[in-house]
C-alpha cells in the first residue's frame, strides 16, 4: 500500500519535473525532425549576453573550478592596477600635503594661557592600552597592506626581487595575524568610548565656533569634541568594513564565489586607504598639530589649561565630581 503510494508520488514528482524542465529543453529541429547541431549549439558569445561568467559542471571536488570564464578578472585587474594605484596615491599624498599645509598655515595649536603645571587624568591605563593595541596593530597592518599594493613600485626597485619577495611574504603573515589584535582593539575602543561619543547639542556649538582651529574663539566640548567623535564613528565604520572583508579574504572561497572575493578585496583596499588617510589626520592633531594633546594618550594626564581650552565641559564635570568626593581638584605636576 505505502509502496504504491511512494511510487505514485515519485511518478508525480517526475512528471512535474518534466513540465518544469520542458521549456529549457528547446532543441532546435530540422524540417525532417532530426536535431540540428548547428542551431542548438551553445556559443560563447550568446552565453555572455545572458550571464557575466560562464559556469558549468565539473568532475573534481574543487567547487570554484566550475567557473569556466570570468572576464571580470580583467576588470578587477584594472581596478587593482590603475584605479587603486592612482586613487590611493592621490588620497594618501593629498592627505599628507594638506596636513603639511595646515601645519604651515595654522601651525601648532598652543595652550592659550600656557601650561598651568596642574595635571588631570584624561585616559585610564586600560583605555590607553586599548588605544595603543589598536594603534600599533593599525600601523603594522597599514604598512604591510600598502606594501602589497605599492611595494612593487616603491620598494622592489630599491631592495631587488629576492629580498622584496622575502619581505612581502613575511609582511603577508604579519598582516594576516595582526588583524586579530586589531579587531580586539577595535571592539575594546568601541565599547569603552561609546557613551562619550554619542552626539550632543554642544557639538553644533563646537562646530559653529570653528572647532578650536580659530584663534580667539573658544569651541566648547565635553569629553570628546565633534572632530574626535567623527574619528570614532568613521573608524568604527571603516574598522567593521575592513574586518569583515578581511576575514572573507582570510578564509577564501568558504562562503564566497569569485565575484564576492573580488568585491571583498576591492572594499578592503579602498576602505583601508581612506582609513589610513583618516588616521594620518588623527596622528597629526594628536602630535604635531596641538600642544599638550599627545600626553592624554601618553602618560594619560593632561594639563589643566589644555583641558580648559579643548574640553571645558568635561573638565568642569571632572572637577565637580572630585569636589564631591572631597579630593584635591588636581594633582600638582612632579
Amino acid at each position: 500500500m505505502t509502496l504504491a503510494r511512494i511510487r505514485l508520488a515519485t511518478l508525480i514528482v517526475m512528471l512535474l519535473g518534466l513540465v518544469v524542465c520542458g521549456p529549457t529543453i528547446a532543441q532546435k529541429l530540422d524540417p525532417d525532425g532530426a536535431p540540428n547541431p548547428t542551431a542548438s549549439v551553445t556559443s560563447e558569445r550568446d552565453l555572455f549576453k545572458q550571464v557575466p561568467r560562464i559556469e558549468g559542471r565539473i568532475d573534481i571536488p574543487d567547487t570554484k573550478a566550475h567557473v569556466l570564464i570570468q572576464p571580470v578578472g580583467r576588470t578587477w585587474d584594472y581596478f587593482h592596477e590603475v584605479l587603486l594605484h592612482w586613487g590611493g596615491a592621490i588620497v594618501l599624498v593629498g592627505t599628507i600635503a594638506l596636513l603639511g599645509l595646515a601645519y604651515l598655515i595654522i601651525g601648532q595649536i598652543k595652550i592659550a594661557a600656557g601650561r598651568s603645571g596642574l595635571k588631570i587624568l584624561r585616559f585610564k591605563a586600560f583605555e590607553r592600552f586599548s588605544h595603543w593595541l589598536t594603534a600599533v596593530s593599525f600601523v603594522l597592518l597599514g604598512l604591510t597592506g600598502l606594501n602589497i599594493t605599492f611595494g612593487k613600485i616603491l620598494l622592489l626597485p630599491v631592495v631587488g626581487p629576492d629580498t622584496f619577495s622575502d619581505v612581502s611574504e613575511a609582511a603577508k603573515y604579519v598582516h594576516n595575524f595582526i588583524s586579530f589584535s586589531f579587531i580586539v582593539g577595535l571592539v575594546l575602543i568601541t565599547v569603552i568610548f561609546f557613551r562619550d561619543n554619542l552626539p550632543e547639542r554642544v557639538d553644533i556649538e563646537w562646530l559653529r565656533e570653528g572647532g578650536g582651529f580659530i584663534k580667539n574663539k573658544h569651541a566648547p566640548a565635553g569629553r570628546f569634541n565633534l572632530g574626535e567623535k567623527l574619528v570614532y564613528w568613521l573608524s568604527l565604520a571603516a574598522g567593521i568594513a575592513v574586518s569583515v572583508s578581511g576575514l572573507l579574504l582570510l578564509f577564501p572561497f568558504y562562503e564566497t564565489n569569485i565575484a564576492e572575493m573580488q568585491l571583498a578585496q576591492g572594499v578592503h583596499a579602498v576602505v583601508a586607504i581612506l582609513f589610513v588617510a583618516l588616521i594620518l589626520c588623527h596622528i597629526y592633531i594628536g602630535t604635531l598639530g596641538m600642544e599638550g594633546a599627545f600626553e592624554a594618550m601618553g602618560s594619560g594626564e593632561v594639563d589643566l589649561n589644555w583641558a580648559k581650552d579643548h574640553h571645558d565641559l568635561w573638565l568642569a564635570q571632572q572637577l565637580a565630581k572630585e569636589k564631591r568626593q572631597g579630593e584635591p581638584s588636581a594633582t600638582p605636576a612632579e
Partner: protein
Amino acid sequence: MARMKFLCDADRCIDCNACVTACKNENEVPWGINRRRVVTINDGKPGERSVSMACMHCTDAPCAAVCPVTCIYPTEDGIVLHSKDLCIGCGYCFYACPFGAPQYPKVGNFGSRGKMDKCTYCAGGGGPEAPGSAEEFEKYGSNRFGEGKLPLCAEMCSTKSLLAGDGDIIAQIYKERVLKRGYGSGAWGWMTAYHQGIEV
C-alpha cells in the same frame, strides 16, 4: 616569432578528460592541483558543450599585472611563466585570472595557500633553474617546449579538439573546420584572453 595559444574546439570535445590525465602525469602535479580541467556547460541539455580549460597564456596577462611581487611574466613566445622562488602565495592571480588557472597546494586559510602552480604550456618554469633540469621538473614539471614539442594535453587529445601551437595556425585550422562542418560554438575564451575572436 610564434605566439603560442590554446584553442578548445568545444564541438569536438567529448569530456574524456584525457588532457587532464596527460597533464597530471606528464608534470607529476600533486593531489588537489588541476592545471587543466574540463567544464561541461548545459550538462544533459541540447547544446551541451564541454570545454577543456587551463591557463590561456593571455595577452596582457592580468595575473602578471596584479602580482604584488611581479613573479609572473610572458616569454618571447607569449607563454606566461612564473617563479615559485618569488611567489608569496597571496592569491591575487586567482582573482584576476579569467580562467581559474592558478592553483595552490594548500587550502589557504590565513594566507597559507603555498606557492602558486599553473599550466606552463609544458615549457618548464620561470625560475633560475636550468631548462630541462631535474630541479626545474621538481618545481614546475615537464619542459617539452624546450625539446621542440607542444603541450602533452593537446598532443594527446583523442578528438583533436584541444589545439596548441602558434595562434594564427590553430585559428586557421579551427576556421576551416567550422566552414566544413557548418557550425561552431566559438573559440572559448579567446576574446577574453587575446582580445580577438575567430570570425568565420
